[in-house]
């Protein structure tokens, strides 16, 4: 174990942390949507992919730079999410959960199919914005500025989401709605509007992660499917019911995955699922989940 250079170890930890940030942002949205809508949102990966294509196309077709895209793409994808909820997903309320799952799965296939048809399956490169190029010396190691930026921006967004849910009036509606939406509505709160908002928020968060991911991963139609499966595992491990828990679980699993690449690369693509199995054996409701 000691023959591994510190630089390699730290390098993998930072890559893991970057992935962990994506897991955290995506799993927050998934958990929010599942909590209030009772829908396992299989379209979440496609929304992430839309974020990445959004920033790519905004640059190619409209000449919009990275910073404006970072702001506008989540808004546009969020609005798309609101439309999907209002026009389509809403019709499935009251039916078995399976219909929501099938619908979102179908939506993901349609979106991925459209982009594959137009842009092919090969990855499209997106340049790192000039201000975030180069390396930064953190004292103990040198790290690409863009990775530091991803971690910083993600933590800010995660904290803002946590604050919204745990510390605001709207957040108390969301938490209460997750427990018993009918009762919340009977107390005079416009739950249908809140449901639309939550789906839009989840979509916007996924798109934000997609924008962040564009310069380091290739922009390609299936990028969302790949990350989504791991994100589901993250949600299962963290358990539903704790916002801070979802964020911590996402980051921790990214780092664990990174470390596994150093110590035992063969297991790196399955380590998350091994952790999931172990956690489920000990705590079936997940690490931070409330026992039903």
């Amino acid at each position: 174990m000691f023959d591994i250079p510190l630089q390699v170890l730290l390098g993998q930890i930072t890559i893991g942390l970057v992935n962990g940030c994506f897991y955290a942002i995506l799993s927050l949205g998934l958990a929010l949507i599942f909590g209030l809508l009772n829908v396992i949102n299989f379209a979440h990966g496609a929304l992430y992919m839309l974020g990445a294509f959004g920033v790519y196309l905004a640059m190619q077709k409209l000449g919009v730079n990275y910073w404006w895209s970072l702001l506008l793409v989540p808004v546009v994808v969020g609005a798309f999410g609101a439309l999907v909820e209002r026009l389509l997903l809403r019709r499935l309320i009251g039916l078995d959960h399976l219909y929501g799952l099938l619908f979102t799965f179908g939506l993901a296939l349609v979106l991925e199919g459209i982009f594959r048809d137009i842009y092919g399956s090969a990855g499209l490169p997106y340049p790192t914005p000039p201000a975030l190029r180069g390396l930064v010396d953190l004292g103990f190691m040198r790290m690409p500025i863009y990775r530091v930026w991803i971690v910083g921006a993600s933590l800010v967004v995660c904290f803002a989401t946590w604050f919204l849910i745990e510390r605001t009036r709207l957040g108390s509606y969301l938490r209460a709605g997750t427990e018993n939406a009918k009762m919340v509505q009977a107390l005079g709160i416009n739950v249908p509007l809140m449901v639309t908002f939550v789906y839009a928020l989840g979509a916007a968060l996924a798109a934000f992660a997609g924008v962040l991911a564009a310069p380091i991963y290739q922009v390609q139609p299936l990028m969302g499917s790949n990350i989504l499966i791991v994100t589901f595992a993250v949600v299962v491990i963290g358990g539903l019911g704790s916002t801070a828990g979802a964020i911590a679980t996402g980051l921790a699993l990214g780092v664990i995955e990174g470390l596994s690449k150093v110590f035992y690369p063969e297991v790196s693509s399955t380590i998350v699922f091994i952790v999931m199995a172990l956690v489920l054996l000990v705590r079936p409701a997940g690490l931070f989940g409330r026992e039903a």
Partner: protein
Amino acid sequence: MLQDLHAWYGESHILHGMTFSLQRGEVVALLGRNGSGRTTTLRAIMGLIDRREGIIRIGGKDVLHLPPHLVARLGVGYCPEERGIFASLSCEENLLLPPQQSSGGMPLEEIYSLLPNLAERRQTPGTRLSGGEQQMLAIARILRTGARLLLLDEISEGLAPVIVDRLFDLIIELKSRGYTILLVEQNKYFAGPLADRFLVVEHGDVTIQLTASELAAKAELVDRTLGV
């Protein structure tokens, strides 16, 4: 006011032409056995039951097709049998949850002075409160909104006698302040001295209507109907 109200849970027809009305400031108790349709009546008024037919009017407005939050905004406060306290919210967050519907709601300080033990437990998570505290909280949170029509389902159920006495005093206080209250009660001794009128519900319909003064005279009939 309800007229010829029918309601269904899935295939089962629960309310069979329920008809009655409430005057402003009146306290009316729905008496009946379990399963007679009293809880369903409250849920139907709130719009929590999908399949309904008939007429429900509140303050002259037809509400049968309104979603629950718009019914609540007409000034209807609903306290369900299971109390509906949210576990992930603190006592005070539960209390502040329902948005203010109209002016004239009870200010927070007044609620706390009326129910001092809620003030002590502000930060306690909802479900760590005792049953009595949860019940107080479930009523208190609909007072803050400015609701003038309160639908209270089995509020004395399963609570210690000392708590039931305090709830009794609370309802007396609310009555004196002019709230219109529709009580669902199993406990005749709780509802007896509180209500102006009693409606005995059987098989989803009102079969006996009594005023407070008639209740004593017809006690035997009511007891037989309720099976006590």
